[in-house]
C-alpha cells in the first residue's frame, strides 16, 4: 500500500512537471513576453534591460526551474490584463467555480446512481424506458444549448431565476459563497443543472450497464438461491460490486466538471475561473492561461490519487496480504 502510494505520487509529480513544461513553453514561445509588457514607445535598450532584469536571457533550464519553484508556491506572475498577481485573481475566482462544480457533482451522483440502479433492476418497466429515452437527450444535446433553453424558459418566459451572475455573495475570510443568500442559491440552480445533466446521464448509463453485468454473476444467483431478499441482493451485494469500475469514471468526470465548466460559465456569465480563462485567451493573458492549465492538471492528479485510494477501501482483493492466504 505504502509503496503503491509512493509510486503513484512519483507518477503524479512527473505529470505535473510535464504540464508545467507546456505551461512554461506558452510563456516563453507564444509571443514575446517583453512585447506584451511594455508600451510601443519603449526603446530597444530599455527592452534589453528589462529582459535582463526579469531573467529572460537565462538558459532554458534555469528559467524553467525558476518557473517550477514559483508555481509550486502558487506564484504565476502578474496578469498582463489586470495588472495584479495571478494567484490573487485565482483565489478570487476559484470559490465560484468550485461551488458550482460541487453542486453539479452532487446532483449528478445523487440522481445518476439511483436512476442507474432503478433502470437496471426494472429493466423493462415503463419508467426505465422513459429514463433511458430522456438520458439520450441529455447525452446528445450540447451543454450550451441546454443552458440557453433553460435561460429562455425559466429566465425570460417564466422569470423565476436570474439569467446571469452569482447573485449576492457572502465573504467568509477569502472564500466568497453564494450558498448563504437566497439570490445566490437562485443564481446557482440553472448553471448547476446545465453542468450536471451530461454527467448525470453518463453516470446513470454506466451504473445501469455495470449493474446488469453484476446481476448476471454467479454470486448474485447463489445469493438468491439461499433465500436472500431482493433488497439485500440489489443494494448490499450488487451495488457494491457495481461501484468498483464506476468510481474511476466518476472521479474522472469530477475533474471534467471543474475543468470544463468553461462553457456553462460563459453561457451564464458566471464569474468563475472558466470565464476568466476565456477572457484571458481573448486578451492573450499568458500568465493566467498557464496558471489555469497547471491548476486543472493538479485537480485531475489529486482526484485520481483519491480514486486509487478509494479502490483500496472498496475492494479487499487489492489489499494484498499474501501471508494470510493459505489452505
Amino acid at each position, binding site marked *: 500500500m505504502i*509503496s503503491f502510494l509512493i509510486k503513484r505520487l512519483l507518477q503524479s509529480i512527473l505529470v505535473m512537471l510535464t504540464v508545467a513544461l507546456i505551461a512554461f513553453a506558452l510563456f516563453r514561445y507564444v509571443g514575446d513576453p517583453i512585447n506584451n509588457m511594455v508600451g510601443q514607445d519603449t526603446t530597444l535598450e530599455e527592452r534589453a534591460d528589462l529582459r535582463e532584469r526579469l531573467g529572460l536571457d537565462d538558459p532554458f533550464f534555469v528559467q524553467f526551474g525558476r518557473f517550477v519553484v514559483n508555481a509550486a508556491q502558487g506564484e504565476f506572475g502578474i496578469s498582463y490584463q489586470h495588472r495584479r498577481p495571478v494567484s490573487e485573481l485565482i483565489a478570487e475566482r476559484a470559490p465560484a467555480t468550485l461551488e458550482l462544480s460541487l453542486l453539479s457533482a452532487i446532483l449528478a451522483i445523487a440522481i445518476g446512481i439511483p436512476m442507474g440502479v432503478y433502470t437496471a433492476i426494472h429493466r423493462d418497466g415503463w419508467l426505465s424506458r422513459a429514463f433511458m429515452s430522456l438520458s439520450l437527450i441529455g447525452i446528445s444535446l450540447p451543454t450550451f444549448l441546454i443552458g440557453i433553453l433553460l435561460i429562455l424558459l425559466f429566465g425570460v418566459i417564466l422569470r423565476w431565476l436570474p439569467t446571469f451572475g452569482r447573485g449576492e455573495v457572502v465573504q467568509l475570510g477569502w472564500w466568497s459563497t453564494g450558498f448563504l443568500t437566497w439570490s445566490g442559491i437562485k443564481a446557482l440552480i440553472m448553471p448547476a443543472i446545465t453542468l450536471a445533466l451530461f454527467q448525470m446521464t453518463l453516470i446513470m448509463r454506466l451504473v445501469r450497464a455495470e449493474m446488469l453485468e453484476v446481476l448476471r*454473476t*454467479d*454470486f448474485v*444467483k*447463489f*445469493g*438468491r*438461491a*439461499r*433465500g*436472500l*431478499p431482493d433488497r*439485500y441482493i440489489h443494494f*448490499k*451485494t450488487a451495488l*457494491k*460490486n457495481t461501484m*468498483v469500475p464506476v468510481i474511476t469514471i466518476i472521479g474522472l468526470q469530477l475533474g471534467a466538471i471543474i475543468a470544463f465548466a468553461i462553457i456553462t460559465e460563459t453561457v451564464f456569465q458566471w464569474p468563475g475561473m472558466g470565464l476568466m480563462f476565456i477572457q484571458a485567451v481573448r486578451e492573450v493573458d499568458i500568465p493566467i492561461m498557464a496558471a489555469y492549465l497547471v491548476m486543472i492538471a493538479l485537480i485531475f492528479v489529486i482526484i485520481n490519487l483519491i480514486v486509487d485510494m478509494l479502490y483500496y477501501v*472498496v*475492494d*479487499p*482483493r487489492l489489499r*494484498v*496480504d*499474501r501471508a*494470510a*492466504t*493459505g*489452505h
Partner: protein
Amino acid sequence: MTLLTIKGMRVEFPSRRGHVTAVQDLTLDVAPGEILGVVGESGAGKSTIGNAIIGLLEPPGEMTAGEITLQGDRIDTLDEVKMRAVRGARIGMIFQDPLTSLDPLQTVETQLIDTIRENLGVSEREGNERAVALLDAVGIPDPAIRIKQYPHQFSGGMRQRVVIALALCGEPDLIIADEPTTALDVSVQAQILDLMKGLCRDRNVGMILITHDMGVIAETADRVAVMYRGRVVETGTTEQIINHPTHEYTQSLISAVPPPGRRLARFPLVTYIEDAQERPEGLNLETHWLGQSRDYGAASDILLEIENLHMRFVTRGSIFPSKRLFLDAVKDVSLSIKSGEVFGLVGESGSGKSTIARMITGIYKPTSGSIRFAGQEITGLTRKDAAPLRRQMQMIFQDPFSSLNSRMRVKDIIAEPIHFHGLASSNAEAQKIVNDLLDVVGLGAQAAVKFPHEFSGGQRQRISIARALATRPRFLVCDEPTSALDVSIQAQVLNLLKDLQSELDLTMMFISHDLPVIRQMCDRVGVMRHGQLLEVSETESLFTNPQHEYTKHLLDLMPKFTGFGAQAAE
C-alpha cells in the same frame, strides 16, 4: 416418506424459432438423507432441473407441466415471496465454480451471518456463533479467524467449503449440488465429496448431485438417474446402474469412461449418440499434404531434450529486491522425449505442466535452462531463426471455445499457419491442403466455409487439431485437449489423436490431470508437483509400481471406476 417428489416435469425455453424443450416427462424423488445422482452429458438438461426446483430458471425458461412437492407441500406454484422462504431455509444450492459463487467484496463472516439471520431470524450474536460452528463443520481450520477473511484469501477447495457452509445456513432439508467438484483438483474433490456425504448422513439432508462424472457418482450417490436429451432414460441404485445398466445410452456412457485399471487399444465410443462420428478409413499418405513428405531431416533418437529448466514469475514487483515476491512455476526440470513417443505430463493445477508446454513452444521465455529440439538449442534463438523449428512443433489447447478466432472462417483458421510459414505457393494450393486436413480430422471439406460458432466443442477441437497439423509438424504439444469435453466426445478426440500419432509418426507431449486418460494415451509419464518433476517412468510401471509417495497418493485418489465397461470389454 419422500422428501422431494417431481412428477412429469417439463421445462421449455420459448425462442423465436419455436420452443426448446430442455426437460420433459421428468419424474424423480429423493428421500431424507439420500444422495440422488443426476448424470448426463452437457445439454442433457441436468442443471435446468436444479434451477426449476428452486424457482430460478433463467428467463424466458419456464416450467410448463408437472408438479414439484417438497415434504407434502407443492412448491412449483408458489409466488416469489413464498418461494424465497423455501430457498435457503428448505432447499440449499451449491454451484459449480467456487471462485465466482462468493461475493468478492464482503467478508465470509458478513455473508454467513446475513444469510443465517435472513433465514432464521436469530440475533446477531447467535448468528455469529452459528456461522463459526458451520465453518468448523465444513472443515475449515481456525474458523474464528478465517471467518474475518475475504473469499480471495481462501483456496479453491476452501472456498467450496465456504459455499457449502452458506448453503447450510438456513438448515435446509434438501441440497441441490450442481457439479460441485468439477472445478477442483482430484485430491480436493475427494475431500469435498466426503464432506458432503458426511453432512447428508449426519443432518439427514437429502441431496441431488448433478454431475457429468460417472466416477463422482460411483463414489457418492445412493441412487442414480441418467439423463439424455432432457429425459431420464434410466433410474436405479448406483450399484445397479454402474454394473448392470439396462438402457443402451447408459451402457455406452459407462463404457466410454476410460478404465483406470487397464490399457485399451482404443477408447470405446458412445455409439448411442447419433452424431458420434469416426473417420471411415485411415489416412491416405498419397494425398495428405499434396503427397509431399516432410522436408526436414530424419528424426534423431531423442527429439526433445530439456535440461535444468527453470521458470520464475514475479508476483509482486518492488523497487527493493528484498520486497519482491516470486513464484517458481517450474523448478529445475530435466526430461527427454524420444522420437515417435507419447510423453505424458500429469499433476494437479498449478504444478507447472502448462508452463513447461509454453516454454517448449516459445510462448514463455525460460528463466534458465536449455531446451534442445532435434539437437538444436532453441532457448536463445531469435524469432526468425526459431521459425523453422517452431514449424515442426504445434500446440493444441484446452479450451476449444477461446482457442479459435470466432471472426475467421475455418479454412482461414487452418490456412493461417501455412501462409505464415510460407508453405504453399498459392492460395489454391493452401486450400487444397486445408480440405485434406479437414478430411483427416473427420470433419469433411464442407466445414471449410463455416465459422467456429457453428461447431460443437468436440468438432472445434478437431479444427484445432487440423490447424496444428497444417505445418506438417513432427512434435505436438497437447495441453489438456479433452478436459473441456464430455466423455463421449473425449473418446472420439483421443482416438483421433492416437490414430494420427501412429499414421503420421508424430511425437507428442500429452498434458492432463486425468490419470486414466494418461494411461490410455502415453508411453512414458512424468509426474509433477509444485513445479518439480518427481518421477518419470514407463506408463505401465507407473501405474503398477509407483516409486514416489505423491504418485501413490494420486493413484489412490483416482476414481476407482470399474463398471459395466470394464467387464464388457473383457
